[in-house]
């Protein structure tokens, strides 16, 4: 059978964000796959250099819509370390609370997306309805559903009251009940099992070689979690299990995320019941002495790394963000090869990709050497040639 090349993206119903996968098909099976990134580059790292540390909080929060708290917390830990600020314990506990609520919201969202990609729309509708509960929790605590803006230099912006605590615990109890139902459904429904088992295999050695992080790595049996390996915030005081699974497939990733939800509920309750007393923020100077700092953080999708360099002014010299999706994307091409076309959306979704976090790299062609300004005609010609190489001819349009 002859080979066909199918472009999956940048615009495709299975993708929520622009990215491109070129799939070489032999019948229904994939014999080759390449990943192309860069459709979502927004120049955020450069923009961060022109803003003060406090203004950057609002910029960094918008790196990603879902792990907004992850990115600000990593950034702010760097700033506080450079400024040698002592963040109050209550503030750290509230940050942990938000981190876990965010994980719940992200994992429930993922469960729905996975259901949608395998054509199980009922699961999608159910989980997204229940996800509203955790969004309500976040709104109750911070006033916002997605960009909570809870972090500020030296602490958090809002305290947690007794009523808010009761409201959150009530909703978490409901979610625990629903999550147990989803775990039962995901592990016992035969079509879900048929679609996820032995799909997107990533053996542990390949996962290590390609630097997989987060639930993707943990589903390949690698016990890798920043919260355990190098505890930040107050994770060293919390009691939680590191969830791993050894099936190396999408089913494993589903189970890992579902069981992590249960752990997160436990942690949320623990933090709320043992909130330390004291102030929620300290003052941090506007200008920060020269220095550099790296911090990592277990975002819902995996390890998020921020590098920050200060130069004595009120603006950073350099900020570098390595989002978890960039680490996991290297594994996607491996997971797709030899699989079925029908599994591609699910395999891509299984790493929970977040392209707007990832597309921050500048790519240039070293062969060209010098800078060149292209006009419309030249750009059009270049893009036609580019697509011709990939097997699609747009020259007659």
């Amino acid at each position, binding site marked *: 059978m002859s080979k*066909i*090349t*199918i*472009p999956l993206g940048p615009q*495709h*119903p*299975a993708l929520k964000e622009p990215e491109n996968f070129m799939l070489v*098909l032999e*019948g*229904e099976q994939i014999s080759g796959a390449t990943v192309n990134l860069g459709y979502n580059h927004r120049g955020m790292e450069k923009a961060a250099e022109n803003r003060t540390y406090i203004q950057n909080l609002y910029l960094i929060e918008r790196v990603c819509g879902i792990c907004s708290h992850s990115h600000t917390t990593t950034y702010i830990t760097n700033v506080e370390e450079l400024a040698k600020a002592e963040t109050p314990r209550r503030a750290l506990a509230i940050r942990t609370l938000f981190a876990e609520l965010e994980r719940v919201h992200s994992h429930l969202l993922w469960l729905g997306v996975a*259901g*949608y*990609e*395998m*054509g*199980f*729309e*009922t*699961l999608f*509708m*159910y989980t997204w*309805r229940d996800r509203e509960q955790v969004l309500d929790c976040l709104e109750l605590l911070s006033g916002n559903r997605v960009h909570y803006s809870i972090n500020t230099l030296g602490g958090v912006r809002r305290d947690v009251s007794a009523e808010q605590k009761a409201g959150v615990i009530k909703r978490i109890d409901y979610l625990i009940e629903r999550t147990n139902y989803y775990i039962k459904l995901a592990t016992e*429904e035969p*079509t*879900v099992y*048929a*679609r996820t088992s032995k799909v997107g295999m990533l053996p542990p050695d390949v996962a290590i070689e390609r630097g997989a992080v987060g639930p993707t790595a943990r589903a390949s049996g690698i016990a890798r979690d920043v919260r355990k390996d190098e505890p930040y915030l107050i994770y060293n005081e919390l009691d939680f299990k590191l969830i791993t699974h050894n099936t190396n497939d999408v089913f494993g990733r589903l189970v890992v995320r579902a069981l992590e939800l249960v752990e997160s509920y436990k942690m949320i309750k623990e933090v709320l019941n043992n909130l330390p007393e004291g102030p929620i923020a300290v003052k941090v100077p506007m200008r920060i002495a020269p220095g550099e700092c790296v911090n990592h953080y277990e975002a819902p999708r995996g390890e998020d790394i921020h590098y920050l360099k200060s130069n004595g002014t009120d603006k950073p010299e350099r900020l570098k963000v390595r989002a978890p999706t960039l680490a996991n994307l290297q594994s996607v091409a491996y997971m797709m090869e030899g699989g*079925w*076309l*029908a*599994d*591609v*959306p699910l395999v891509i979704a299984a790493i929970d990709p977040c392209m707007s976090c990832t597309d921050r790299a500048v790519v240039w062609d070293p062969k060209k050497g010098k800078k060149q300004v292209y006009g419309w005609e030249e750009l059009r010609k270049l893009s036609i040639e580019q697509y011709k190489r990939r097997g*699609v001819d747009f020259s*007659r349009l």
Partner: protein
Amino acid sequence: MESIIPLAYLLIFPGFLFLAVYGMFLQWVDRKLCAVMQNRMGPPWFQPFADFIKLLAKEVIVPDEADNRMFRLLPYFAMAAVMTALVSIPVTGPSALYSFQGDLVAVIYLLTIPTVTFFLAGWSSSSPYSTVGAMRVLTQLFAYEVPLMLSLIGPAILAGTWNISEIAAFFSAHPALIPAQLLGFVASLIALQGKLERMPFDIPHAKNEIVGGQFTEYTGRLLNFFLLAVDMELVVGAALVNAVFLGGSLGFAGWAGVGVFLGKTLFITFLLALLKVLMARIRIEQMINFCWKYLAPVALAQVAFDIFLKFKLG
């Protein structure tokens, strides 16, 4: 006057007009039921009609690479085949407009034509997504067609006739035998789900994988008539299953017959909607395995049981 009645049968009731309107209505029922089961609001009752009118007004674009004449004619072929099939299926009365010995086989073949046009539509569009969709249409055809035919043969053997109207009359006369067809009924419903390309067998136009599948390049009016043909196929398929397994109109005629027909097709639509909501879409190779390993033997068991029953009853 004599010639007007068959013409009215073909064009108005239960022919083209009724089929189109009722098909769109069933589409709405299906969507609304699924929505309610999935905790959603669902569309208002006029949504399928609004979609129909909207698509009629849209521009028709034929790809350069496609065969212009074939690309434009295929939707009408699909619709014509579905409507022709209805001629031999008893809808609201005990007998069809035109029934003959062997019309069961003819109807099965007429209902295969839309699937073949879907394949040709996808293939002639010559875009990667529609080519893959077209290959899936054909692969899927080989999976569900055999179980569907086998399951329809059972009642025919029991009734001792290949005439759909006579099969319906037989079951109307012996309603006690209807529950004995349960296995075949279930097998035929599942195979029908495959024929109508509905969840969990909507593999040829799985939107997460190959966008619109075989219909990716179709727009406007042409797409509209394909979708209408699928809606009509739902009615005709439900009517066929109803006539073969559930005794058709149960001997009623006139308004009572219409009522029985509507009630039963709504029930079958409910079952189809339930199947759609309960499952994830499966892969093409899983579908072939399922159809040949489980569905075809179940249908065969029904045939064997019917032969046994036939001898027992004399």
